């Protein structure tokens, strides 16, 4: 974190990498002389680190639990704001070798999802249940990037990833919408941190993320409205 008003440090969930880097450019344009630094990582780790005094002015997590960890750990200087959502989609490799057209085709193919212990896995399980699909995966990946990598490389016939991930890999995968996914949302939260010493920049960033300009960038990256 900056000791003056020219540097802003943002700890953010890895899935926010692309939109936040775009936001950074816009933000630095608006606030001359300001430099935004990031620390991307898993939400859980970032939240834990925040409670232990990791440098940072703003924390953005890809779930509610992590933000609660930060809150309980007295790391937050302000109430968290829900600023985006993400939803699951089904992706298949560009050439769709298994000919999957919907969630019902999964049975008998090599498909993957996240592990039950993490949000993207829990969402997938819920959606599968909602759609009364009993297919079992070939692997329960430890994060959504691993799911995407497997599908993008053709190692898996299909996989559950967030809409934003599908956009990142748009050349390599084909997206199949899942019925009911718009109700099973994964929320994103952002909050100013206790150790913020950026003299107002942190609040500016939080505000900027929720501003129309910020929301547009997030939407372009595939995020849903908060």
């Amino acid at each position, binding site marked *: 974190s900056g000791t003056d008003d020219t540097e802003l440090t943002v700890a953010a969930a890895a899935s926010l990498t692309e939109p936040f880097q775009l936001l950074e450019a816009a933000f630095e344009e608006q606030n001359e002389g300001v430099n935004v630094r990031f620390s991307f990582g*898993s939400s*859980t*780790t970032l939240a*834990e680190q925040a409670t232990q005094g990791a440098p940072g002015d703003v924390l953005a997590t890809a779930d509610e639990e992590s933000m609660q960890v930060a809150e309980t750990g007295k790391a937050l200087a302000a109430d968290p704001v829900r600023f985006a959502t993400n939803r699951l989609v089904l992706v298949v490799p560009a050439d769709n070798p298994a000919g999957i057209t919907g969630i019902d085709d999964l049975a008998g193919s*090599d498909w*993957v999802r996240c*592990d039950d*212990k*993490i949000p993207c896995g829990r969402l997938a399980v819920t959606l599968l249940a909602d759609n009364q699909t009993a297919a079992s*995966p*070939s*692997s*329960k*990946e*430890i994060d959504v990037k*691993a799911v995407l*990598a*497997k599908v993008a*490389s*053709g*190692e898996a016939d299909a996989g559950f990833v967030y809409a934003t991930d599908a956009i990142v890999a748009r050349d390599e995968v084909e997206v199949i919408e899942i019925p009911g996914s718009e109700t099973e949302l994964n929320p994103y939260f952002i909050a100013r941190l206790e150790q913020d010493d950026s003299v107002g920049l942190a609040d500016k960033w939080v505000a900027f993320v929720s501003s129309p300009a910020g929301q547009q960038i997030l939407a372009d990256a595939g995020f849903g409205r908060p």
Partner: protein
Amino acid sequence: MTDPLGRPPARLLVPAVLGTLLLLVPLVALVLSTPWSLLGEQLASRELRQALWLSVLTATVAMLACLVLGLPLAWVLARLEFPGRGLLRTLVTIPLVLPPVVAGVALMAAFGRTGLIGKPLWELTGFALPYTTAGVVVAHTFVSLPFVVLAIEGALRSARKEYDAAAATLGASRWLTFRTVTVPLAMPGILAGMMLGWARSIGEFGATITFAGNYEGTTQTMPSLIYVSMNSDPEAARSLSLVLLVFSVVVLVALRDRWLATP
């Protein structure tokens, strides 16, 4: 009698103690900060038992694979002179510098269903390594092999080549010499190399998860289990780590006592 070579100098003892502390303190801190209360419950879980067994199984098979492939490779590097030896040695070192996840990506590009070797294999036999226990072994082997080869090569180079020559004058073939002279003389280094390989495989995570995935019973090793637990229940993850730690130590101690009993 005091040591006839003289007292060990402080200049060596002090850094040795510091090095020991650097390794010791984090372990102690980890143990102290672990909720022991959870341990009983953890130990009873089928998930843990499966993952632990799979870790031990795959690390051990990978260690044997590293021995079978790595010992000859180390021998070639240490004993033969041929153009391109330097190149080969560098090649062996490269996988070390790959972050494990990238190693997983590389393995996928090679042996995955759509990979360089994997694709024809898949098309011919319908078999693919990802999602299989064999895939975990391949990932472990790929990541650990460099350690094993370099450690063993060092040991082979230190053992005097002249004994190989002596064996040749007695009519021994190179293979017999290798088995009965070269290997026994380099044994401490070979065992150390195997131990390095085993330990590295036990802790390996990035390449395994990327290449072989994470499914209970077939590809979920302890590190994967710990990683996913960390996201849902950090305390549980710590006690799982402790289980892995204690278990590995027991195995290592047992092996060391058997193998490396210093004369």
